[in-house]
């Protein structure tokens, strides 16, 4: 059985080291926070100027001056700090975040990431902080379904969509398998309801398997 979005988020959460400084991208990656082990000591960064971001705000906690990168109301944890945008992005771009988690349209076998534009001629371009996160975090985890709605694989020999960052992705968490991207190429770390042989035949890329699979 392929994984639900929640199970994918749990897989990502499991690989985040205790005490790591982490930025969770807008949309699906935001849900990874729900699966962090209590007491993990993971500290969340939000690009709009905060470390120590807490869970979504509800009811009387909602404060329009306290939002995440998706502009949703959030809360503040003890030990939080606020800083301005240049400092926040210096933190990202300077390589201080341990992990960031983002969605993707495509990831290439060399870790190129495409997640901001489909290149459609009528689309309004918008990139936000994705390019800064992609090149800044020590590890970039991608969370996506392995196949697009039209069935085409999203883990590809080379990205056909406009790039967000080059050679930056180290792990890809999908509904049917988890991959590690490194010097040796793409390694299958785990599969879910699919064999490595089926994976190989459905993807047009070279794969190596972890010994334990």
């Amino acid at each position, binding site marked *: 059985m392929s994984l639900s979005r929640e199970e994918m988020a749990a897989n990502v959460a499991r690989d985040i080291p205790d005490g790591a400084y982490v930025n969770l991208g807008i949309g699906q990656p935001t849900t990874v926070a729900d699966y962090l082990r209590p007491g993990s000591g993971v500290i969340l960064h939000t690009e709009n100027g905060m470390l120590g971001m807490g869970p979504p705000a509800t009811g009387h906690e*909602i404060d329009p*001056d306290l939002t995440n990168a998706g502009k949703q109301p959030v809360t*503040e944890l003890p030990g939080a700090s*606020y800083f301005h*945008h*240049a400092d926040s992005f210096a933190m990202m771009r300077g390589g201080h975040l341990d992990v960031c988690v983002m*969605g993707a349209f495509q990831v290439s076998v060399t870790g190129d990431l495409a997640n901001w534009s489909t290149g459609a001629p009528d689309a309004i371009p918008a*990139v936000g902080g994705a390019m800064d996160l992609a090149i800044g975090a020590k590890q970039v985890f991608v969370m996506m379904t392995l196949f697009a709605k039209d069935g085409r694989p999203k883990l590809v020999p080379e990205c056909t969509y406009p790039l967000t*960052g080059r050679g930056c992705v180290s792990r890809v968490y999908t509904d049917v398998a988890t991959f590690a991207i490194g010097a040796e190429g793409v390694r299958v770390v785990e599969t879910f309801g699919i064999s490595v042989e089926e994976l190989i035949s459905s993807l047009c890329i070279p794969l190596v398997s972890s010994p334990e699979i």
Partner: protein
Amino acid sequence: MTAVIMAAAEAVSVVKDGDTVLVGGFGMAGMPVELIDALIEHGAGDLTIVSNNAGNGDTGLAALLAAGRVRKVVCSFPRQSDSWVFDGLYRAGKIELEVVPQGNLAERMRAAGAGIGAFFSPTGVGTPLAEGKESRVIDGREYVLEYPIRGDVALIRAHVADRMGNLVYRKTARNFGPVMATAAAVTIAQVSRIVDIGALDPEAVVTPAIFVNRLVAVSAPAASSAPTAPAASSAPTAPAASSAPADRQEPA
């Protein structure tokens, strides 16, 4: 000169046709709505607006765009669930757009404020947003050369000011305010409260008064229902969006 306290209409009258105006805020958090309203009233047009987004809903920046006063928007993320005003103008070819990665946007304004002529940025390398730009490999890593973004005027929202113009902000409404304050020839700050000189802790001032030219007190800013006490963390009383939609295209 230390900051001068004035009404919003007088404060924004410094904006001229064709000016580049830096507008604070990340979505509505930190957006100087009352200053933008005054700018619409003032009437200056042909503006270049530098802001993270291109307006939300029908107020603030969106209202300025709707009034036809903006020639060009420089921002990182124009397309949001509630950016219909910008979307319509853009699709009708009535507004120019320069998309800048958010970190480059912040750092380019910081460079303007800090006297840096240009800098090699790690962001955007190998992407369409670096096309045509000078690049260089330094210590084995490729960078793109980025230039400062200066404003004729910055419109920002802070939380509390003292009468000199020292500013403190509130939570993530701080965002672009401190950077924009350094990058404009004239910085106008809308604040919830103006206190006496000496009332702010010198260790906790975020924007020193040297960067602030005009102060406008707006006791109940439309963009925020934040309490006015600097240290308060109690709940705001006005309603707020309880489930703001994600503003990025979700690729997954």
